[in-house]
Each structure stands twice: as C-alpha cells, then as structure tokens.
C-alpha cells in the first residue's frame, strides 16, 4: 500500500534491501522541512580482507585470488593485477597477447553490460518490478539480452577456460592461447551479438528519462589511439592527467561510519564519477565513426551528464565491445609463446584497467622472490559512492512532496544507474527516508 507523505516535519525513508544490485546494502534518506539533508549508502557487507590475505602470497597466485573478488567482473581484477605485476618486474606484454587480453575484457564488458541493461535496469524505466515481469511483454528483448550475455561469457570461457573466475590468465600472458581456427564459432555469435546490441541501443533510447543533469568530474583512463580498456593515463574532465603510478597523489580513500566500503575522493575537490559516462565523455573521439553515429541516433552528444541515460551509454559500449572483439579476432595470429618470461624482483607495481563499472586500480609491493608484501585494490563502486549519494540528493529533491514509495522507487533507480557491485566494493542495499 502506498505510503503518503506524513504531515510531520521529519521523514525517514529507508530502502531495507536494494534489489537488482550485486551484494547487500541499504539507503537512508533524511528530509527536513521539505529539504534533503542527507543521503547515506549503508554498505553492511562484511569486509572481505582481500588486500590482507594477498600479503605473503606469490605473484603467480595473484590473478586467481583477485578473480574471486567478483563473479561478474573477474577479468577486471585479473587484468589490473597482471599489469601491476608486470609493471613491477619490468615486463611489457604486447602484440597478440595484448590483443587477447583486450578481447577477453571485451567479453566481460558484453556480459556485464547486457546483464545490467536488460535484466537489472530496463524494468525501472518501463514500470516493471523485475525482468521476469518485463519478459512477459518484452520477451524478444530479454532473449536478446540473455543471448548477448551468453556471447560475452563464451569469450571468457574460450580464452579464460571458464566463465566465472577464469583460470587461463597469468602474469606475462596466458597459460594457453587459441589457434586461429578455433575462433570460427565465436565470430558467428559475435556478429549476431553486435546486431542485437545495436537493436538494444535503439530500444533503450526510447525509454522515458528523468530530466537531470549533474556536474560530474569524470575520471577515466585515456589512451593515445584506442577506447580505453587495459591501458592509459588517468584523466579527468577538470584537468587531471596522471600516470597510474601517481594515482595516490591526487586520489584518497576515506573511511565513513555508514559503510564498510571506503569512499574515494579527489583530495582537493571531493566526489568524482568513473564508469561508462566518464569513459564515454573522455574518450568519445576514440569510438569508431559507426558507433559515434549510433550514439547520435540514440540522442547522445559527445558528453552525457544525465545519470539515467547511462543505460544508453552502456548499450553503446556493448556495441563497441562486439565490434572491437570482431576486429581483434580478424587480426589474430597465434603468438610464438602463450606468455612472455617474467622474473620477480623487489619492486612496487601499478595496474589500472577499465572494469565495466569504472577504473579498477591496484598497487602491489613485492619481495625479491615475488612474494606480496603489500596490496591495495580500489574498485570502481567504492570510488563512485560519494557521487551516488550526491545523485540521490539531486534525484530526491524535486520529489520531497511525493510519497515515500515514489521517492524510494526513484532513488533505487538512481542507484542502479551505477550498476553498483556492492560485493566488490564490500563493499551494498536497503532505503530509509527520515523526515524532520
């Protein structure tokens, strides 16, 4: 039964358990005299202590340990880790091994984005409680979403050995690389997936979007000649331009009482946004012309500041990931070896890659035999928490005269704009509105 606004001065709206996000958390919203005074994400998943359990483990174990941080985006953690290890030991992985790493990451973008767009986020815009109810009226779109997800998973299985927590990624490259002929079934599925992704862009572009523009500082990787996935400098829309090794000079993590996940901030300015909107805004010119045209057809400019339209940007990135995967496969020839030699040394190394939800930054310090002395992992959802809270204030402000149920629904939709992975960030959701 809908809850009507109370006549008392204080309203407390609490979302006790946020659905359609990965992991568990809650939201407390406090409204005083018709004004939003606070929006707090309460992340109560227990700390998982990955950084501590990595200490004392060998560098070769690292990709398999960090993959367990997430079942949706294990490649992000594996790729940031292997790049950090190689950075520490002075090794560069190029050529076809680099291309295969980009290809497996495309698979992760496709499966993660397709899951979020169709199964988790689209029901919000079309007024359904979940994807199952939506499937009764939009079965073709749900089938497309599942097919896209399956194709992304196939890439992970093909190159990684399995879909969840792949086992074929190692420092220096892979344990095994495929023969050219093995790609044939994947190519056919990817061509079909690309068509489905284009259809998905056109579908989500028709959704009704709340009118909201936010003045984000976008943060993403930026690379000389490609849309960033595995490599690049950390740049922002307000002038940050850093080598990834210097990340900690500008960004910091702070503990907050209401969350087991650390909040990331730009030391001098505060909240920032990473993820699809940031990646797109800072790298639009790196997208192929056909993808840029599709974005224009879907009503997007070179920059999008409406967080609700992130669903279109995710769909655009899904098209790009399919195109890029096909391009990489077309140019593939097996490398001479599945990995390049790697020798440990006492050193520190840094890795930063573009997880589906945003930059995933890793730092490791190694002993001379490659044993990890210290590890630091900054996942994208943790970085976006302050922006999520600021978004919620902006989203709820025009709605304070509405019922708690209306506010609750729109706030949950606003949180899902981020495709938050609470488990990764330990790191999410319930909504409580306090009105005074």
């Amino acid at each position, binding site marked *: 039964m809908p809850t009507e606004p109370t006549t008392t001065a204080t309203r407390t709206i609490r979302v006790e358990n946020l659905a359609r996000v990965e992991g568990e958390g809650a939201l407390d919203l406090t409204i005083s005299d018709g004004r939003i005074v606070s929006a707090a994400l309460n992340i109560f998943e227990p700390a998982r202590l990955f950084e501590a359990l990595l200490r004392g483990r060998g560098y070769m174990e690292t990709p398999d340990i960090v993959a367990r941080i997430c079942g949706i985006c294990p490649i992000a953690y594996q790729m940031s880790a292997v790049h950090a290890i190689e950075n520490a030991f002075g090794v560069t992985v190029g050529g076809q091994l680099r291309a295969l790493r980009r290809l497996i990451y495309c698979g992760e973008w496709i499966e993660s984005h397709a899951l979020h767009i169709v*199964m988790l986020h689209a029901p919000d815009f079309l007024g359904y409680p979940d994807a199952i109810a939506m*499937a009764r009226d939009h079965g073709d779109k*749900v089938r497309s979403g*599942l097919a896209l997800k399956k194709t992304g*998973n196939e890439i992970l299985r093909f190159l990684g050995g399995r*879909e969840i927590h792949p086992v074929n990624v190692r420092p220096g490259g892979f344990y095994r690389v495929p023969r050219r002929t093995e790609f044939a079934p994947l190519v056919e599925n990817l061509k079909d997936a690309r068509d489905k992704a284009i259809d998905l862009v056109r579908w989500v572009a028709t959704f009704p979007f709340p009118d909201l523009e936010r003045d984000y500082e976008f943060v993403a990787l930026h690379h000389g000649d490609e849309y960033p996935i595995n490599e690049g400098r950390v740049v922002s829309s307000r002038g940050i331009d850093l080598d990834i090794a210097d990340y900690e000079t500008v960004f910091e993590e702070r503990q907050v009482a209401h969350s087991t996940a650390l909040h990331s901030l730009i030391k001098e300015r505060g909240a920032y946004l990473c993820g699809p909107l940031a990646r797109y805004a800072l790298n639009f010119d790196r997208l192929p012309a056909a993808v840029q045209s599709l974005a224009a057809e879907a009503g997007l400019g070179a920059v999008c500041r409406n967080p609700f339209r992130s669903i279109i940007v995710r769909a655009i990135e899904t098209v790009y990931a399919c195109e890029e995967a096909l391009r990489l496969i077309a140019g593939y020839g097996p490398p001479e070896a599945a990995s390049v030699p790697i020798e440990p040394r006492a050193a520190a190394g840094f890795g930063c890659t573009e997880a589906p939800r945003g930059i995933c930054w890793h730092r490791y310090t190694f002993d001379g035999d490659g044993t990890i002395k210290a590890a630091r992992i900054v996942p994208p959802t943790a970085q976006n928490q302050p922006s999520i809270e600021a978004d919620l204030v902006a989203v709820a402000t025009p709605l304070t005269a509405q019922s708690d149920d209306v506010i609750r629904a729109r706030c949950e939709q606003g949180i899902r704009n981020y495709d938050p992975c609470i*488990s990764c960030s330990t790191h999410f959701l319930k909504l409580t509105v306090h009105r005074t």
Partner: protein
Amino acid sequence: MRETPAQVLVIGLGNPDRGDDGVGPLVANQLTGLLPADVEVISAHGDALSLISRSVGCDAVIYIDAAAPLTAPGRIHRVDLATSELPKDLAPASSHAFGLTEAIDLARALQQAPRDIIVYAIEGASFAGGAPMTAEVVAAAAEVAGRVAEEVERLRRVPGKSVVNA
C-alpha cells in the same frame, strides 16, 4: 514414424568447496554411468541465468541443489513444478541477483521452460568455505542419485517433442 524418448537434462547445482552446497555436483558425479548415454548430466554453479539456455530444447530437466536448513540435515524435498511451486524457504540463497527460482520463472515467462521441471532440494547444515560435507547430506546424495535415475527413466517414457521418421 516413431516417437523419440524425451530429452532429459540433469543439473547438479552448487559449489563443491562450500560444504553441503556441493551436494548437487556430488549427485551429478554419482550418476556417471547410471543413465542412458543421451541423458546429459552437468554440474553448475554461479550464474543461474545460463541454465535457461542450457535447458532450451529439453523436454525435462532435473535440478539437484542444496537447501537452507529447515528441519534436519540431509532431508530430501522433491518438488514437481508441474503441480507445485518451489517453496521460498527452500530456494537456495544467492548473493547475486538471479537464483534458481528466478531462472525458472524467467524461462517460463520467455516460454523457454522445459515441459517437466523436477527439483530435488537437500537440506544442508554447513556451507562454510572448505568445510567437509555433513554425513547425513552425503547419505542423502546416494539416495537422491538412485531416485534421479528412476525419475529419468519415468520422464524418458513420456514421448519427446521431436519425432523421427522411421
């Protein structure tokens, strides 16, 4: 023209490294060699959505999964979804958005669900990482393997969707 036997898929769900959660894969292992060659037996855990595509085209699917503790470890619940729903308190918990219940509901909404869906849910006691399986659950696995073998025979006698010209 003759009728083909119904195509039956058996899926053992669970993580063998999480104590009693591994009972589904254990039953799947125990069915090796017990079923006709055209009956596929797989172990799966993680992404329940992928189960939808795995069962497309099948006439029947049998799921074996661990259940949350309700009454006693090793207690076996058989649910025929043609006649009843999967009780919510038996539905295995998932930290991700889609569990077995949602996957089955979604397959039905998409009209991609097999004609027959049978779920064997075995109550567990310990789901800790690396924990051994409870003795009662191990014993239940052997009983469920036998019952699934009989169930497969029964389901195969129901004519399949496809027919072959003799």
